[in-house]
């Protein structure tokens, strides 16, 4: 009963919003400004149909997700170990942090012109030398320029939060396992990593958010031929505002989905953190 009440409360504003939208769209009566609700829902409900000649909603989501997966994955592979090393060792910190701090303040999208000049329209397909077939269609959509920008967006939040997590580990915890016979690896794997995991996870969460934002913006740039961001720009050019809105709604839904995954992990594995003193 209490649960039901909570659900109702959280739904009040979304529903009011949708009602407003519907009323406005009927009053305005111009689907080039504000399409009716059912048009957007209709597209969302049939994600496999081809839209304005650039493939289905599914296909564009798929391409976008693959781009994020690779750029973000690279940011994790580099950011987490680097963060751990910097967090553990004063020397490595001195060696690297000055250098890394040069790049930290640069907004990821500021790299766009430079990256386009460097990589042009080169994609993973160019790098691995695939020139035809289904695999080519996929790989050719994974432009290096976009991957780079996504990487840049996700890397720093991940790095910073990892360093913060490792440095914040209570010294007594490390000392106590040392006196129990732990070696350096034990300290890393059984204390530092689990202790900083909540913070690392925060980094991953923020990193994914930034990656996703960078992606959609990057896809709106010239040279892009697929992805949710591209879908939005292209639909705008052919004045299909219903598809533009569908694209925006999709971005929001995927964002919520990611957020949910992280929340689930936090709740399931890191209860000790919120409960501990």
């Amino acid at each position, binding site marked *: 009963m209490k649960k039901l009440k909570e659900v109702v409360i959280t739904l009040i504003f979304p529903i009011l919003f949708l009602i407003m939208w519907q009323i406005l769209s009927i009053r305005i009566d111009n689907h080039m400004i504000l399409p009716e609700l059912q048009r957007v829902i209709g597209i969302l409900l049939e994600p496999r149909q081809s839209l304005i000649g650039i493939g289905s909603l599914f296909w564009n989501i798929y391409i976008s997700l693959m781009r994020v997966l690779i750029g973000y994955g690279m940011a994790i592979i580099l950011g987490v170990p680097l963060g751990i090393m910097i967090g553990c060792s004063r020397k490595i910190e001195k060696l690297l942090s000055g250098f890394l701090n040069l790049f930290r303040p640069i907004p990821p999208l500021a790299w766009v012109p430079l990256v386009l000049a460097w990589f042009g329209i080169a994609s993973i397909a160019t790098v691995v030398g695939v020139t035809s077939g289904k695999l080519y269609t996929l790989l050719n959509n994974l432009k290096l320029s976009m991957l780079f920008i996504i990487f840049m967006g996700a890397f720093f939040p991940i790095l910073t939060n990892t360093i913060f997590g490792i440095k914040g580990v209570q010294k*007594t915890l490390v000392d106590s396992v*040392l006196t129990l016979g732990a070696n350096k690896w034990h300290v890393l794997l059984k204390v530092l990593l689990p202790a900083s*995991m909540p913070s690392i996870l925060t980094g991953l969460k923020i990193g994914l958010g930034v990656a996703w934002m960078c992606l959609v913006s990057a896809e709106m740039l010239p040279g892009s031929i697929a992805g949710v961001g591209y879908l939005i720009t292209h639909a705008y050019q052919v004045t299909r505002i219903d598809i533009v809105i569908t694209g925006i709604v999709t971005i929001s839904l995927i964002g919520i989905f990611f957020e949910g995954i992280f929340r689930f992990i936090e709740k399931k594995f890191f209860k000790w953190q919120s409960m501990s003193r």
Partner: protein
Amino acid sequence: MKEIIRLREVNKTFTSEKGHNIEALQDINLSIEESQFICLLGPSGSGKSTLLRLMAGLMDASEGEVEVMGKSIKKPISEASMVFQEYSLLPWRNIIDNVAFGLEVRKVPKKEGYAIARNILGKFGLEGFEKNYPYELSGGMQQRAAIARAMAVSPEILYMDEPFGALDAHTRLQMQQELISFWLKDKRTIVFVTHSVEEAIFLGTRIIVMSSRPGRIIEDFQIDLPYPRDRWSGKFGHYFNRLMDLMNGKSSITEEYSEVYNQCNNL
């Protein structure tokens, strides 16, 4: 008796954030023999924790030498374990996994490790809490689990930094008994920090008294009382009065109190 810990001319100076030097320990010369139950007694800030950390190899001396089991100590050794003054259980591990930690890193099979851990937890009144997480336990229970964890590896030397500070009076007495019987059973060396005079006399074979600023050893003597000790015996009272006076600053022990000391020993 064999010497197990040796400190020679040890000084420890900390530099505070503002750049002041804090002399935490000064001119510490100390020889600790095997199988002794040493109590370190002293007011807050007298360097007891620092001394313990030096002996445990968690910290280097600024000057002088610290030898444990015949070797100069550079890092913690597997023959010694420690109970900390602060809470030190790993918050993401349940109690039994915490207590079995030392056995786990020693590659003791999991089943065996759990059996040992369960046994000790039982002795410390923590049966039924194996699967609970530290945050679900009271402060005193957490501290008992931390003691169990340090004992689970059956160390040659056990360092304990005010382990019973957070316990209520009743549990405290119980834990003191438990510790005594653990010690009597196979006479490991224990270095026990406390600022309770009564606790020191109840537990120790030898009491080392420290003063603060700078941290120095101001008194060091044996307690010749059989176990289990009777808090109401006359001899206990003598030791108590003597130490209280010492702690209260009447520290010209050598003349005034050597007499009392001798009396104590003659009783």
